[in-house]
């Protein structure tokens, strides 16, 4: 599916992002905030200062009976872990793939290296495939690495604070296998579709707001009136979003011509 010429482009794009200190820092810091900083604060507050969370009783009361198995604190932690953290977590692939896709598509246009690449013996579709793959690979690598780090940090903290671990639920499996890949693809598609018009990487990255914003709203919603996330809905949502992204991507690839790409 990927030929050696495309592989060269994928390798080059990945190397470009890894050797760019600014972009690499963004790729590391943002996930760390979501996977280490936030959960640590949550767990420490719930363990050592639960009184500070003024509506903790309310949240607890909103939870269904079968979730209130252990004591109040482990119940809250389990709720946060399976119903709030996944939402924060889906922002990671969106940001990672936006940063990567903006650099790979718009960055090359901005630096005038795209024109050179257009004289290569690849069809426009093949070149775009390679670039989409590069963004997808980086985004998923960052996402999965974030998950592993989060798991280690959260479980170590729980062990330290409560003396036992609370393992993540089924919803995480679907987050990792369906929702995050779909979100990556959607974000890449959004950037690709805007790449002919966007003149700078920053312009282009800002488009990812369209994806992050709805997720933020859901997060805020979660704190006001709780919607428990059914893991199977996640699987379905991931599949639907992934299919939409794939269709949109196909559509935008067909529209690209050399001239449209080089327009400034």
């Amino acid at each position: 599916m990927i030929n050696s010429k495309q592989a060269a482009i994928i390798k080059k794009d990945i190397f470009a992002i890894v050797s760019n200190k600014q972009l690499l820092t963004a790729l590391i810091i943002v996930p760390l905030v979501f996977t280490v900083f936030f959960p640590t604060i949550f767990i420490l507050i719930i363990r050592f200062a639960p009184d500070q969370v003024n509506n903790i009783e309310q949240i607890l009361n909103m939870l269904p009976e079968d979730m209130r198995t252990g004591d109040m604190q482990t119940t809250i932690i389990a709720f946060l872990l399976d119903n709030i953290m996944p939402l924060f977590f889906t922002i990671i692939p969106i940001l990672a793939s936006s940063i990567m896709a903006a650099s790979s598509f718009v960055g090359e246009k901005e630096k005038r290296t795209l024109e050179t690449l257009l004289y290569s013996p690849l069809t426009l579709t093949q070149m775009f495939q390679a670039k989409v793959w590069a963004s997808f690979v980086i985004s998923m690598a960052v996402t999965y690495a974030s998950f592993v780090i989060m798991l280690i940090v959260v479980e170590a903290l729980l062990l330290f604070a409560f003396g036992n671990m609370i393992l993540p639920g089924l919803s995480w499996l679907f987050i990792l296998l369906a929702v995050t890949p779909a979100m990556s693809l959607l974000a890449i598609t959004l950037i690709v579709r805007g790449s002919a018009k966007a003149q700078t990487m920053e312009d282009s990255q800002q488009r990812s707001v369209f994806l992050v914003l709805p997720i933020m709203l859901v997060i805020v919603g979660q704190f006001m009136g709780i919607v428990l996330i059914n893991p199977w809905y996640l699987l379905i949502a991931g599949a639907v979003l992934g299919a939409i992204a794939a269709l949109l991507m196909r559509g935008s690839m067909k529209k690209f011509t050399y001239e449209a790409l080089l327009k400034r």
Partner: protein
Amino acid sequence: MNVIITENLSKTYDGGKEAVKNLTLTLEQGEVFGFLGPNGAGKTTAVKLLNGTVSHTTGSCRVFDIDPMTKPEELHQISGVLTEHAQMYDHMTGLDNLLFFGAVFGLSAGESKTRALGLLEELELFDAKDKRLSTYSTGMRQRLSLARAMIHKPKILFLDEPTSGLDPESILSVNRMIKNLAENEGVTIFLCTHQLRYAQEICCRYGLIDDGIMFANGTLDELRGLVSGGTTVKIKTDTDIHEIQVEDESEIPAIVKRIVNEGGNIYSVSTEKPSLEDVYFALTNKIDPARGGASA
């Protein structure tokens, strides 16, 4: 064998600018063709048309029997293109840039490396090969771009203003390289420039373009035939330097005899044919007397 054939090829950009009008042209294999005209004449657009990176509005063209519009990727495998705006990667070294493009053109890692090192040597960039491109001067970048355009041993090379930013010494070595490619390896060269004096040094045939129209095309002698005024004879005597126009060299002995008979002492006699520049301006004045022919 004709490697480029165009018929009434025209390009009108979206804004309505007619950049190339009815270009009909054939190029033979191994030719160094000079496509000459002032800035904005339509040279770069022609190169892009011939490589399928802009679509033509009317007409047709084939390069090595490939239609650049429908199969650009096939054409790119055998054509090398140097254009003024095509850059390489600043964060990579000169060598890594060439290795990357080698891989993109389907060379194996070994082939890429041998080819890249050879080109770096030939273009006097060997010592800078491990430095990042961001440290390169304009001239070094231009030479690296030239190496990049040749990494896959193209059968046809499009060079758009290849000498821009080069010092005179580099121009000489680049010229040697271009001549060698054409003469010994049969590579066809399509060279665009607005520097007529430079073009005269290496091209064997010319197309003169202005405002999208190719108004003349042929060898230098053929172009000279289009304008009046043949050879200029310069005769230096003890009192003066005479410049006399003759139609044919056979007129020279008579002129010399006359001066001697009139008692003049002759120190030197030289002949000068009109240069490409002379011919160009004579021709542009002919098609557009209002221009005055002073700018290029």
